[in-house]
């Protein structure tokens, strides 16, 4: 079994076998990060460009650490300090990068579909690190890795995803991945944050938190994007928190051994209460640890297949 593709653009295009291959490979990379010498020489001479058109600390750092632990060279381009502010177009930036012969470009962009456009414009491998409200495939892979590690399976799990589903690329990638892997997905959130026709992706739709998380094995709380507060999706943060903040009381609707996940960054007291975020069922920091392993696996698999 091999990952016979140039790019990783989304979970939607991956087969179950490909997802399993990525997760199995990521499992093998976990222990490198716990060694005294956290580096293997595998990707010596490979150059990875992190091209980020949106702010990110976690994802960018995670890709950078993953590349460095495999001995690849990394370059970070944040567009606030690049020629983009001088008016260069996206494709021109990409062609200029291509001319410097990197091997892999990791792209985050606010426009959905931009990694696909980049992939057609350059011969390098492109990894989607989040495109608009479309997909965030590496996040879904690290989420699935964490579920598989803790619950020993994905098939048959009941996973609840709660929050601003309409604007969430994390939700979309997870819905594609989890339904493929045989999990039951239920989504919850205010009706203003629910995209139309989302049930066509094979998920249960709920508008109350307790209904969405009933009997859930996993609860994934999404970040409320505070910058959208002006757009009248909800009346006030306080009201949102009152109905949708996961806390010690409403979590009782889920299974006793429920796991709590959050893609970060958290708004404590808005979508998740501190006692849940720091509680015994929270695997939020394990998600971050597994993120490095998943990204190492992808860099490895995309470099080796040529």
């Amino acid at each position, binding site marked *: *079994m*091999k*990952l016979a593709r140039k790019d990783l653009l989304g979970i939607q295009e991956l087969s179950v076998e490909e997802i399993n291959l990525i997760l*199995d*490979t990521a499992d*093998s*990379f976990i*222990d*490198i990060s716990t*060694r*005294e*010498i956290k*580096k*293997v*020489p*595998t*990707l010596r*001479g*490979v150059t990875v460009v992190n091209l980020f058109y949106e702010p990110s600390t976690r994802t960018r750092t995670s890709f950078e650490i993953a590349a460095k632990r*495999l001995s690849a060279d990394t370059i970070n381009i944040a567009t606030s300090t690049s020629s983009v502010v001088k008016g260069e177009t996206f494709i021109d930036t990409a062609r200029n990068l291509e001319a410097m012969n990197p091997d892999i470009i990791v792209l985050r962009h606010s426009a959905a579909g931009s990694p696909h456009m980049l992939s057609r414009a350059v011969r390098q491998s492109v990894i989607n690190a989040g495109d608009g409200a479309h997909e965030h495939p590496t996040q879904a892979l690290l989420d699935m890795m964490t579920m598989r590690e803790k619950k020993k399976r994905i098939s048959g799990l009941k996973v609840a995803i709660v929050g601003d589903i309409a604007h969430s690329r994390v939700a979309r990638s997870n819905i594609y991945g989890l339904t493929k892997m045989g999990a039951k997905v239920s989504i919850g959130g205010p009706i203003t944050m629910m995209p139309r026709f989302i049930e066509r992706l094979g998920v249960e739709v709920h508008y109350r938190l307790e209904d969405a998380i009933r009997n859930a094995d996993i609860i994934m709380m999404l970040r409320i994007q505070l910058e959208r507060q002006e757009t009248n999706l909800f009346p006030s943060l306080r009201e949102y928190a009152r109905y949708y903040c996961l806390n010690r009381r409403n979590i009782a609707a889920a299974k006793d051994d429920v796991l709590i996940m959050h893609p970060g960054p958290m708004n404590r007291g808005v979508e998740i209460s501190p006692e849940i975020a720091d509680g015994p069922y929270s695997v939020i920091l394990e998600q971050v640890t597994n993120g490095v392993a998943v990204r190492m696996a992808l860099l490895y*698999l995309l*470099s*080796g*297949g*040529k």
Partner: protein
Amino acid sequence: MKKRKVVMDAEGIERSLTRVAYQILEKNKGVEDLVLIGIQTGGILLAERLGKKISAIEGVPIPVGKLDITLYRDDIMRSGKQRALGKTDIPFSLNGRKVVLVDDVLFTGRTIRAAMDALMDFGRPRLIELAVLIDRGHREIPIRADFVGKNLPSSQSEEVLVKLSKRKTSDAVIIEETF
């Protein structure tokens, strides 16, 4: 067409391993600080068997680990193949230890080069020795084995297959030539 010839049977392998176990003990003057590391995949069972023999002779258990060298290969970006990763499991410190690397067949020597690089990332052994069941020649880098079960001169076109199983009954070393 393939021509196959059995060059070592289960008994022969067993006798060779017994001799190699004694040689390891003789050269290292006992088991103090001694550890065995089998190289994935062919060296794992051999290391376990050698470990059992040495423990039985000396009456003390000796640590046995597993090493996967995939990430240290010199052809990993050139082979055009994605290689599945195996498990590395060295649940003890290598600092100051005498490490005996164990593999089934010594051929070009490149696997051993990669294994030594990998070991160095886990610590600083006092010394590294190499034990192999078969030395088939054709070295491409200056590496030699300290302990050899059987020297088996072969041609480049032949394949040397070491078949081992937990039950030992069908163990064999086979030379295979494709026409």
